[in-house]
């Protein structure tokens, strides 16, 4: 590296971030300045945008493992006629398969496990496996023409969450945190909630890179809220220390650091003081967030019985609503268990039962509170599943990246719409393909960001 550049890189974060000349997107820099003015973690006031945003915040309901679009959203009556027959080569078109089915002699086509019906005023086709989602059909826009190049979980899930199959890129949430900053003084702008479905237990592994900050500063990485006594890591003071002890310690710390600041005039010292103060506030705000005792019974009824049990998908959906209310910019749920290679009948039904009601409840609840109109909700996984059976007919379905379904709702999205179309086998896209990168660009667009003008050079 050029030694002068090296020297310039050694300057403090504060002055660095104040310089648009170093190539940081102007919007992000302005946001960072606003954030620094308030000395917050992930940002301050909402930043100026490239265009008028239709959403202020995002709740991403990530269904890890690859939900079967054929059994849930992509209605294909033709499959009734060809059920059990081999997948025609004219449909497969030589597509590579995963090692799990590439050795199979036959690829028997399997019709949807569940009956489909048109739902709501809009007449969206949704299967009987999702009765609650069916009731909010007029709020959601189903994209039936999603596609990805990845055929296995690790690259696939990394691709959709970071924009590349290779590790090292920032996750969607950290990009948004970096670009727009936080909307509150007590919580992070990007929060992650992980849950395990019983559909396939244990599910496919996930990785902290999915909410990592990649090459962006690590204060934009997703903060995992966990279902334990320490909802955020190291939130609790040591045993024996009460709040006044901590306050007394922080007062001393601040006094020492102020002395130092008077000598060094380094604004970073003041930033550190304010970060300690935010940590102190988080020690109250984070437990308050995950304490559901102030929620009335009708809310638990809405989200279903599991919403009372911490660590479940239903509980996390309810937490997501509380985060939306408190100004968390990007809340992402990771729910595992959709990788239904076998026991499709049982596992898929279990997954749907655990997620359907709370997912729909979140839409209803946000709508009742007037938050749906500026909260973008995304439901989907890293790919779909094959129309042909893995193993014997009807046993399971393998990974399928050539088409799958994802839905979006709220935040400027027109509900009751289906976008894109697949062929009679739900195998190839025939109309309006949406690559996962297109979806990510659209998410940024809804938040007021032009992905082509949103860069970070380093």
């Amino acid at each position, binding site marked *: 590296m050029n030694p002068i550049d090296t020297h310039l890189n050694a300057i403090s974060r504060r002055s660095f971030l104040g310089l648009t000349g170093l190539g940081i997107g102007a919007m992000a820099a302005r946001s960072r300045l606003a954030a620094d003015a308030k000395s917050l973690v992930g940002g301050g006031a909402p930043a100026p945008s490239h265009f008028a945003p239709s959403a202020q915040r995002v709740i991403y309901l990530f269904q890890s493992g690859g939900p079967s679009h054929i059994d849930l959203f992509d209605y294909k009556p033709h499959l009734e006629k060809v059920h059990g027959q081999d997948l025609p080569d004219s449909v497969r078109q030589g597509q590579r398969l995963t090692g799990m089915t590439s050795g199979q002699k036959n690829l028997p086509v399997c019709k949807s496990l569940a009956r489909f019906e048109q739902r709501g005023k809009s007449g969206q086709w949704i299967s009987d496996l999702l009765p609650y989602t069916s009731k909010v059909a007029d709020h959601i826009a189903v994209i039936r023409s999603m596609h990805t190049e990845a055929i296995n979980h690790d690259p696939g899930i990394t691709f959709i969450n970071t924009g590349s199959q290779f590790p090292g890129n920032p996750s969607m949430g950290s990009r948004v945190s970096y670009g727009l900053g936080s909307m509150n003084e007590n919580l992070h702008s990007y929060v992650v909630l992980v849950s395990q479905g019983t559909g396939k237990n244990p599910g496919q592994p996930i990785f902290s890179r999915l909410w990592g900050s990649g090459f962006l500063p690590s204060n934009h990485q997703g903060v995992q809220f966990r279902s334990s006594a320490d909802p*955020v890591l190291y939130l609790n003071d040591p045993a024996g220390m009460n709040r*006044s002890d901590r306050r007394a310690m922080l007062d001393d710390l601040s006094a020492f650091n102020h002395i130092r600041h008077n*000598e060094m005039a380094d604004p970073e010292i003041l930033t550190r003081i304010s970060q300690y103060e935010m940590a102190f506030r988080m020690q109250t705000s984070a437990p308050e967030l995950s304490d559901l005792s102030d929620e009335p019974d009708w809310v638990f009824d809405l989200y279903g019985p599991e919403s009372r049990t911490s660590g479940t998908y239903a509980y996390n959906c309810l937490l997501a609503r509380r985060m939306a209310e408190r100004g968390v910019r990007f809340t992402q749920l990771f729910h595992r268990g959709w990788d239904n290679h076998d026991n499709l009948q049982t596992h898929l039904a279990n997954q749907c039962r655990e997620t359907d009601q709370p997912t729909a409840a979140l839409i209803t609840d946000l709508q009742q509170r007037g938050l749906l109109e500026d909260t973008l909700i995304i439901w989907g996984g890293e790919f779909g599943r094959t129309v042909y059976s893995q193993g014997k007919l009807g046993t399971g379905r393998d990974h399928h990246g050539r088409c799958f379904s994802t839905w979006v709702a709220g935040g400027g999205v027109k509900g009751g719409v289906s976008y894109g179309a697949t062929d009679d086998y739900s195998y190839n896209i025939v109309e309006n393909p949406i690559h996962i990168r297109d979806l990510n660009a659209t998410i940024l667009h809804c938040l007021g960001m032009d992905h082509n003008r949103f860069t970070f050079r380093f």
Partner: protein
Amino acid sequence: MHHLLKTILTSETYCRSAASTPEHLEKDPRNELLARSPRTRHPAEIIRDQALAVSGLLNPAIGGPGVHPPQHDLWSEISHFSYNPPFTAQIFLPGRDASTLRRSVYTFWKRTSPPPVLSLFDAPTRETCAVVRNATDTPLQALVVMNEPQFVAAGAALGKRMIAEGGASPTSRLTYGFRLVIGRDPEAKEMKLLEKSLARHLERFTTGEADAQTLAGTPEQAAYAMLGSTLINLDEFINRP
């Protein structure tokens, strides 16, 4: 080469302190004129290692397999965990001996779920090559140094060390602790603060207003533990001075 290095190292510019003035910051915010030395935050490993070192807890053993300082079991929350430990890193099994107090370079690294104490201080994930490390400043870092069990233990051990090795008077004990952590004597203002802080903690623990027993033992030990923790949280300890 020797001549060049000597010239650089003995130059007035290289020897300059990191201290600045508002006027300098105003005129040269990027320090292009080199009126001051850069003031950077220590890397993750050094922050943990030096806390263990000044408290006397550091285990200096060299070499051998990776070690597992206790942490929350973040691994099983995301991993496949269908294989029995200890053959895979699917479930976190905390180390239970003095190996957990070795330098951070020995901490076992699971790339899909790196040790949070280090990753929160910008240690790269090791999934890709990192040309430069970030040096962020976040509330989660504050929580680590205040509450992570090994940092808490370091604060308490530093307190004990001040009592045992720092002489009989509070002044000499406080000076000893401050010198251990910061590497210089406290200034008069700082000494006054240290003494005031000690007196206040002692009073709270002696009157039972705060729980000395659970925290560290006797009221005196608890008061020094609080000061020990305060010292390792100082900006001057976490940053290059």
